[in-house]
């Protein structure tokens, strides 16, 4: 099909598109054959360019469909507004994430250091009395670490004595994350520092709120109003008077530290809902 094409076809085609040099243009104009070829190509071009228009329905459907996609994208973008806003600032999102992570690492490291210091002091004192392990210097360092971590934990729930129910935010934004705690005294000291509630110790160890076995889905439901920590972290129903006040590493096991606002009892509970230790006030 292409072998029979006119040798000056490209010249004629470019003439149609007005893409000729002066010399080429003069050559085309001087040749009746080339002029005729250009005319035939023009006729062909006009036929190709004569396109039947889309029906009104086709047009409407296409535009409506595309705008619906646009609306969906905008709705998604709105849902992700904070991230989107940050992303629109050059490097803004990266910096924010980096800073947040760095803060958490620093806070955790400081907390670990503080707990270590506190633990050492406790061992040296040879006493389980939490009051005796809180030296003035230790308190200052501890508060500093806790305050830093608390500042980093955006939206962290304040843990007050008035708290009557554990909240999701308390574990999503723990005051101190990943604190290494290896002994009961350290856990209690941590509770007194991070959850210094004006609690009424109406009950003793016998009335400890029990963290039920997570393997039994009915367990704990009878407590009525038991709080459940988010499943992405821990899915253990807690008593209404229990608050989660920290993520800890209890003897190298990831856990949360829980305190009863009624009894003051402190527990370390693993992510699979096993009570690792219970400490009375």
């Amino acid at each position, binding site marked *: *099909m*292409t072998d*029979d*094409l*006119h*040798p000056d*076809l*490209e010249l*004629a*085609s*470019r003439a*149609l*598109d007005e*893409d000729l040099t002066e010399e080429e243009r003069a050559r085309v104009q001087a040749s009746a054959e080339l002029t*005729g*070829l250009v005319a*035939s*190509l023009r*006729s*062909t*071009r006009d*036929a*190709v*360019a*004569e*396109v*039947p*228009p*889309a*029906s009104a329905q*086709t*047009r409407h*459907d*296409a*535009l409506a*469909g*595309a*705008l619906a*996609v*646009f*609306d969906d*994208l*905008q709705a998604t*973008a709105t849902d992700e507004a904070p991230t989107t806003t940050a992303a629109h600032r050059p490097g803004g999102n990266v910096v924010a994430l980096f800073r947040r992570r760095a803060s958490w690492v620093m806070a955790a490291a400081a907390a670990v250091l503080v707990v270590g210091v506190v633990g050492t002091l406790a061992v040296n004192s040879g006493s389980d009395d939490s009051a005796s392990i809180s030296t003035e210097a230790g308190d200052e360092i501890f508060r500093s670490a806790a305050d830093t971590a608390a500042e980093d934990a955006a939206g962290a729930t304040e843990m007050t004595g008035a708290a009557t129910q554990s909240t999701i935010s308390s574990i999503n934004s723990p005051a101190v994350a990943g604190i290494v705690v290896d002994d009961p005294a350290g856990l209690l000291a941590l509770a007194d520092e991070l959850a210094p509630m004006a609690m009424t110790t109406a009950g003793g160890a016998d009335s400890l709120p029990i963290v039920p076995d997570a393997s039994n889905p009915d367990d704990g439901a009878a407590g009525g109003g038991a709080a459940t920590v988010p499943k992405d972290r821990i899915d253990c129903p807690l008593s209404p008077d229990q608050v989660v006040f920290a993520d800890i590493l209890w003897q190298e096991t990831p856990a949360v530290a829980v305190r009863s606002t009624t009894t003051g009892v402190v527990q370390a509970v693993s992510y699979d809902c096993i009570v690792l230790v219970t400490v009375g006030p």
Partner: protein
Amino acid sequence: MAAALDDRSLVLAAQAGDRDAMDQLLRRHFDRIHAVCRRITGNEADAADAAQEALIAVVRGLQRFDGRSAFSTWVYRVATNASLDELRRRRRRPIASVDRDHHDPHDDHAPRRTEAADPAAERPIDMVAERMATDAALAGLAEEFRVPVVLRDVADLDYAEIAEVLGVPIGTVKSRIARGRGMLAGALGRTGNRGATPERPTGAS
């Protein structure tokens, strides 16, 4: 949103979430997008699907459009790709019987290919015959020639823009357009071949 805004301003507004700007952009380019799709796919049903896909692709890809090329160039590239995708899908599915080989557009008694959804179907019979002959001629053209011809003669892109869309040198674009036009002219009974005698002489020749 003012009606006189150019593409660039509308693109920026649409990228910022302005629905009216997006609407205006799509409406402004729809007819030519559809025309490109119509000429590449060769029939109304596939053109409608391809045009719809193209518009959606434009909406989805708008945030990635950086303005280095003209919006129209980008849009017609999208439309071209959507059309070629539609052709590939069409090849994988059975085709309703249309015997083009036995249809003579100059013979009123010959079987006619009709497309109910095509509004042009109600045009005068000679126009329909002309359109069908053009469709058949384009359909007989290899994609490598058909696409640049359509982008030049339907989308009105210049050589450089077509080269950008197709990712080939400008010289190749010129050559393919010329050869494509020549083959079309021959298929339509116009001259374009060396010493060609039209198989079906038109009244004008």
